[in-house]
């Protein structure tokens, strides 16, 4: 069906559908390909995966040691591998260090462990400002850090994919692994938020 757009008045969705139609008409899209990938992107890759990794590291010293030594192997124990998860490094927060992840050049993220990155993470503001004004950006987002805490920003500019291993929060001593998972959100795994016991 021909539409009557002038130059560049089409919507992003119409352009995506147009590209899809051209490829489909040429029979270049295998059956189930898009559905299978969409299942991974929309469901299987989730911050709940990262929450499992972090909670285990909080309760299991051996796993913690492995996660910090070889994040790829540690995440692979859970089956969290694949595209954008081929070389994983966990960043260990301490009482005096807060790690935060960004991709200033675009959007690279640890897909299998954190899930696809959120809009604000891919947005111009976060990409431009975090590397230069880390503490200020964290404060604006809602995380006020004591002056004694150093901010270290990790720019995902090549093939390493990160997750933040935060400090286990005060008040969580009696919680089991499953309860601990609930404290670990996507924002915690990116490093812009700290886990808190409600």
């Amino acid at each position: 069906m021909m539409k009557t757009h002038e130059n560049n008045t089409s919507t992003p969705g119409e352009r995506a559908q147009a590209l899809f139609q051209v490829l489909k008409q040429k029979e270049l899209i295998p059956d189930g390909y898009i559905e299978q990938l969409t299942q991974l992107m929309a469901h299987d890759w989730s911050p709940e995966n990262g929450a499992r990794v972090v909670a285990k590291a909080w309760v299991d010293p051996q796993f913690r040691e492995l996660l910090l030594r070889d994040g790829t192997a540690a995440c692979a124990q859970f089956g969290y591998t694949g595209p954008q998860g081929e070389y994983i490094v966990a960043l260990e927060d301490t009482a005096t260090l807060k790690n935060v992840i960004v991709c200033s050049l675009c959007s690279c993220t640890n897909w299998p462990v954190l899930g696809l990155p959120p809009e604000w993470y891919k947005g111009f503001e976060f990409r431009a400002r975090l590397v230069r004004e880390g503490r200020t950006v964290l404060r604006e987002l809602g995380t006020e850090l004591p002056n004694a805490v150093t901010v270290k920003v990790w720019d995902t500019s090549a093939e390493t994919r990160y997750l933040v291993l935060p400090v286990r929060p005060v008040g969580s001593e009696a919680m089991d692994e499953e309860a601990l998972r609930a404290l670990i959100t996507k924002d915690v795994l990116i490093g812009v938020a700290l886990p808190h016991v409600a």
Partner: protein
Amino acid sequence: MDGFHDLGGFQGFGKVPHTINSLSYTPVFKQDWEHLAYSLMFIGVDHLKKFSVDEVRHAVERLDVRQHVGTQYYERYVIATATLLVETGVITQAELDQALGSHFKLANPAHAKGRPALTGRPPFELGDRVVVRDEYVAGHVRMPAYVRGKEGVVLHRTSAKWPFPDAIGHGDTSAAHQPTYHVEFRVKDLWGDAADEGFVVVDLFEGYLDKAKTSQVVNA
């Protein structure tokens, strides 16, 4: 290339439009076409094997700046994928225009053919002070401009190697494979007093780095 995509340190933006832990992040895709962006990209990269993800990154960088500023994230990946499918002869501009019913604006052509990696040098070691080579690159490069010429310290050398982005990003499948280095910079060394205190760690291919001439301990 020194493009608009290279945003680290760019001033003039307002607040990040987010408050921590305010979103459930489901559904992952907010509009019914967004899943097509990566899906069609992987059709080109993984199924048809016509181009690499690095070339997709470069195609995003080649979006005209005036267009880039106004695009949504997934829209950029649709345009980049369409551009590469046309450039590799899988589809034509006319077919896209026909399907859309209007002109389908693609990314600008590449300004360069890419470049090979600097090789044949000994690797850097943990704790080495390194300087990011003071180079200006017309094609794809994965060195954020804010570290160009800057000195930092090596925290980690990857055990894996990957094809040099400046070569594979232009379709050179003979690109040398190199490790990358997590290089820590003091924010003050990057932007002086017009920045917060702290550190930035950038993941840099070996070919982007030289050993620093000085050896003073700055990050102690």
